[in-house]
C-alpha cells in the first residue's frame, strides 16, 4: 500500500472551509513528486455528511472521525485524536491550512508525532530527489527553500497559494468512519462569539486605497482619503499594524486575519507587502504600490511600482487626477 499525504479538513459553524480544497490541490501537486496517496481526515461530532461531500468533490478517500461532544475546534482534542489516528495511516506528510486553526495545532501535532513542521508554505518543487518547500521570510523580501529532515512532516499551507482547479467529474473517494472519544480537560472550549460585523465595508468598493505602517502617522491617512475620493465607489483600508495602533478600525484590515478583497484597483501606500497582507489582496484586478523602500516585497505583487515618499507623491497624484478630470469636463 502506498504511503499517504494526510489532509486535515477545516470546518467551522456547520460549514466546510473552502481552504480544504486548496489543501487538496497542494496534496495533488505534492503527490506528483512523491507518488503518495492524498487522504483526508475530518474530526467533529457530526462529520459524516462533510466526509461524503469532500470525498465526492476531491475523489480522495476520507476518514471521518466522530468525536462525541466535539462541537467545534479544540486544539487539545485535535492533537490527542490526530496523534492517535495518524501514525496508523502510513503518513509521510500531514497538511493543514495556515489559518488560525492550523497555526494553533500543527506545530504541537508535529511535536506529538516526532515530525518536522514547516509553516506558511507557498510553493514546492523537487530538486536532487528532495522536496523543497518555499516560504517567505523577512517580510516577504526573501524566500526560504526548506527540506524536511524527518520521516514525517507537518506542513501548513498558505491560503491562496494553491488555488483549487475547476471541478472535474471524479470517482468519489471512500469514506471510512470511526469514533474516537476524547475530551479537553486542560483547555475547555466555552463558546465561539462574533465580535465584528460580518458585513464587509469593502463589499461595494471598486477601488481600494490601503495604508501600511509606512504612512508614518495617522494624519497621513487624509492623503489616502483624498486619493480614494477621486474614484467613485472607493474605500480606504489598511494592513494589520495600522489597525493595531488605532489609526483605522479593524473592520478595515486586509490580510490573513482580516478581509480578503478583489477590487478592480488596489493602491497600496506604505505597505511593505508581507505575506500576511498580500494574502488578502493578491487577486485584485490591478495593483499599484507606492513605497520609498525599493526592496519592499509589495513590488513583487504590483503591476505598477512607484518608489517615492508617499507624502510627496500622493498629493501630486491627486492633483493630476483632479486636473485630468477637469480637462475631461472641458472637452465634453
Amino acid at each position: 500500500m502506498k504511503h499517504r499525504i494526510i489532509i486535515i479538513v477545516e470546518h467551522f459553524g456547520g460549514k466546510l472551509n473552502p481552504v480544504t480544497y486548496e489543501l487538496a490541490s497542494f496534496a495533488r501537486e505534492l503527490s506528483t513528486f512523491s507518488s503518495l496517496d492524498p487522504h483526508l481526515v475530518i474530526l467533529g461530532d457530526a462529520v459524516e455528511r462533510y466526509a461524503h461531500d469532500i470525498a465526492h468533490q476531491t475523489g480522495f478517500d476520507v476518514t471521518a472521525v466522530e468525536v462525541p461532544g466535539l462541537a467545534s475546534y479544540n486544539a487539545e482534542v485535535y492533537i490527542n485524536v490526530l496523534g492517535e489516528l495518524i501514525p496508523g495511516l502510513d503518513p509521510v506528510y500531514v497538511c493543514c491550512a495556515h489559518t488560525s486553526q492550523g497555526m494553533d495545532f500543527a506545530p504541537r501535532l508535529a511535536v506529538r508525532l516526532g515530525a518536522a513542521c514547516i509553516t506558511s508554505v507557498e510553493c514546492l518543487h523537487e530538486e536532487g530527489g528532495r522536496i523543497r518547500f518555499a516560504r517567505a521570510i523577512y517580510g516577504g523580501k526573501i524566500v526560504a527553500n526548506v527540506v524536511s529532515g524527518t520521516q514525517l512532516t507537518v506542513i501548513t499551507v498558505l491560503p491562496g497559494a494553491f488555488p483549487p482547479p475547476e471541478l472535474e467529474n471524479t470517482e468519489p473517494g471512500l469514506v471510512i468512519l470511526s469514533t474516537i472519544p476524547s475530551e479537553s480537560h486542560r483547555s475547555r472550549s466555552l463558546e465561539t462569539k462574533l465580535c465584528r460585523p460580518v458585513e464587509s465595508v469593502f463589499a461595494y468598493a471598486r477601488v481600494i486605497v490601503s495604508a501600511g505602517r509606512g504612512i508614518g502617522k495617522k494624519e497621513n491617512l487624509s492623503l489616502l482619503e483624498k486619493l480614494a475620493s477621486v474614484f467613485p465607489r472607493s474605500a480606504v483600508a489598511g494592513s494589520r499594524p495600522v489597525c493595531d495602533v488605532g489609526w483605522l478600525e479593524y473592520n478595515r484590515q486586509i490580510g490573513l486575519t482580516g478581509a480578503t478583497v478583489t477590487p478592480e484597483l488596489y493602491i497600496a501606500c506604505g505597505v511593505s507587502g508581507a505575506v500576511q497582507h498580500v494574502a488578502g489582496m493578491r487577486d485584485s484586478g490591478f495593483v499599484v504600490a507606492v513605497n520609498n523602500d525599493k526592496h519592499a516585497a509589495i513590488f513583487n505583487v504590483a503591476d505598477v511600482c512607484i518608489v517615492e515618499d508617499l507624502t510627496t507623491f500622493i498629493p501630486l497624484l491627486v492633483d493630476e487626477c483632479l486636473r485630468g478630470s477637469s480637462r475631461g469636463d472641458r472637452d465634453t
Partner: protein
Amino acid sequence: MRILVCVKDVPAPVAGIRIDSAATWITIDKSYPFMLNRFDEFAIEEALLIKEKFPETVVEAITVGPERSALALRRTIGMGAGKGIHILVEHGGYISPFVIASMMASYAWDKGYGLILTGIMSEDHMHGQVGPVLAELLSWPCATSVVYERIQKCQLRVYAEREIEGGYRDCLDLALPAVLSIQTGINRPRYPSLSNVLRAKKAHLETIRADTLQPPDSQEHLIELTYPQKSRAGKILQGTPKEKAFQLFTILSEKAFI
C-alpha cells in the same frame, strides 16, 4: 505567579537585506540596528498588565541568540520586566523554531513558571511555532492568537479569547501553567520608562551557553535562499515624482479607472 516572556531580536524591517554569495544566509545593512520583535512587545505588555493586576507577579524574559540578542532582553527590562535570561548561541545564523523552543523548554521546565507568553510570530522568519512547540514540549495547554486573557483570581486557570477568521473569537478556559501566544492589538505596548531603561542598561543577565542545554538537531534544513519571483508586471515608473504622477494618471485613465 511567575511569568516568562519569550522574546527575540530581529533586523529592523526597513533594513536592506540581501542574500549572501552562498545563497544560504543573508547579509543585513549594518546601518540599521536590530530591534525587539514587534510581536513580542504585545506579549511583554500583557505580562506587565497581569503584574499590575497581581502585584506579587514576577515577569522574566528569555531569548535564544548570539551576543547581540541581549538587546531584546534589555528592551524587555526597559519596559518593566524583572530579569533576563540569555541562552547564548555561538553563531548569528538561522536557528529553527524547534531548536529555540527546545532550549527554552530545557531552561524553563523546572523554574515554577505559571504562564509563558510569546508573540504570535517573529518578524524575520515568521514561523509562528515557538509558542505552541514550547507548550507541547512542556506538556502544557496552549492557546495561540490570543486577543484577550484574564487570569482567574485563584491563579490556577486563565480565560482566553483567540482571534479567528471572520470576526469571531474562540473562548477557552485553560488550566495553568499554560502557554499563550499573543496576537497584536490585544493592548498598546508601553514605552520604556527612563528609570527602567537605566535599570536595563545595568541589569545582570543570566547567561547560559546553548550547548549546555543539549539542543536537539534541527528537524528541517534551510537549503537555499532566493528572491521572490514577481507575480505581476511590476513596471517601475521613472522620472521625477511629478512625472511619475502623470504617468500613473495616464495608466489609470487608459484603464478607465478615472
